[in-house]
């Protein structure tokens, strides 16, 4: 069974989204996604200050088995990336909701958060 924390938001393409106190969001890939991928061996991150649109493919996570795109869950601007993942991509398997966050975003429109899936909705997607 995969871990789907109730306090996070989700998108169908298996990214999780955490809303921070300052209104920015942190994005990573879900436990379900890392299980499907298998051993993660390479991560490519977006560039800071990039403006991204909803659903743009902006990062890559590669396991031994396959490559998967990481999508921008909402429109906005990349304000930070987790450089530590580049040297330790296995963190995606070990701690997908913690140390293995991918990037932080400033949203173009905070109302967009209403479009995201709840943990229950996402759990249903994974079944």
């Amino acid at each position, binding site marked *: 069974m995969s871990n789907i924390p109730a306090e996070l938001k989700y998108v169908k393409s298996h990214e999780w989204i955490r809303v921070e106190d300052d209104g920015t969001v942190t994005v990573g890939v879900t436990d379900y996604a890392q299980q499907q991928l298998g051993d993660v061996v390479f991560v490519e991150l977006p560039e800071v200050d990039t403006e991204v649109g909803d659903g743009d493919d902006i990062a890559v996570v590669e396991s*031994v088995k396959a490559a998967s795109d990481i999508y921008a869950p909402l429109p906005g601007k990349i304000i930070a990336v987790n450089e530590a993942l580049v040297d330790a991509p296995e963190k995606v398997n070990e701690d997908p909701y913690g140390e293995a966050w991918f990037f932080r975003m400033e949203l173009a429109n905070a109302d967009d958060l209403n479009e995201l899936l709840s943990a229950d909705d996402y759990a249903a997607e994974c079944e």
Partner: protein
Amino acid sequence: MGKQTALYEQHLAAGGKMVDFGGWDMPIHYGSQIQEHNAVRQAAGVFDVSHMTIVDIHGSDAKAYLQRLLANNVDKLKTPGKALYSGMLNEQGGVIDDLIVYLTEDGYRTVVNCATREKDLAWMEQQRAGFDVSLTERPELAMLAVQGPNAIATVADIFNASERTHMAELVQGLNVFQGLPVDGWFIARTGYTGEDGLEIMIPAEQAADFWQALLAQGVQPAGLGARDTLRLEAGMNLYGNDMDDSISPLQAGMGWTIAWEPAEREFNGRAPLASEKEAGDSPKLVGLILEGRGIMRAHQKVVVDGIGEGEITSGTFSPTMQQSIAMARVPRATGDSCQVEVRGKLVAAQVVKLPFVRNGEIVCK
């Protein structure tokens, strides 16, 4: 649900993540492909390869038939148990499949791939015309590959512990690429990982007990994922990736498996292959090591400056080398460097001779 091997329940019990593989429900891994890969390189792992197709060949024309069917020459097999790797070619010289053939006391035994089973059997049946030969599939046999530096000693220990000392002696006395029957089993010192080890054909009803005995000795169950990274590091071809019906053995790094002598042996595809060899300009299969970041995958484009383009046939992350490696078909004039188009970007790669890893050591320069 696909077909299940005699070890299906054991896979589930060991935590195997099951996937469809050529119509069979097979384990891709049991938790971590990399851990399984490393266990085979450093100690011992066991693979269920029961999905592969075993075909016994009997009859007074068995040798003549195989001399037509295979690019390698079974006349090289002088004593029962000796094994030979060969391509089975079509009339155009393309590879229908690659296989191992063993000389047995009363004929030959071949092991062909699972995904190509129907095509292979139809071709082998069609080629039987004019030869006194019978083909017998052996679906009642399971097949396990025990691979790694400790594989042979561990299997011998298991036999000794159950007082099957004659089987332990047989296992310890096998030469490389030799397989022998014992008590209804057929044990061969062959494999697909670049490590020493055994491939063991065994009555299906005995497979689960033997599997459990291996696990009890600390042998790591390993899935198809590790099998793929191990064979790629070992520079071994995978049918459908590195060769197929449209690719000749000369282009697939299998030139050494073509027995040109004696000149009068008319194997399928000989004439077009001979022309291709004489022309000397067909692409070649090489190893690539990515110098930049990323992972090479099958079908990515290879760019060789001033010479032309090629294609990755198999690519992955190498757990042993901790970087991306690949096999690629490139223009014959390719030197020691190229670029690979990885997800839209050209990344530099070093061209090396295969294999990358053999017996636990990185051997490519």
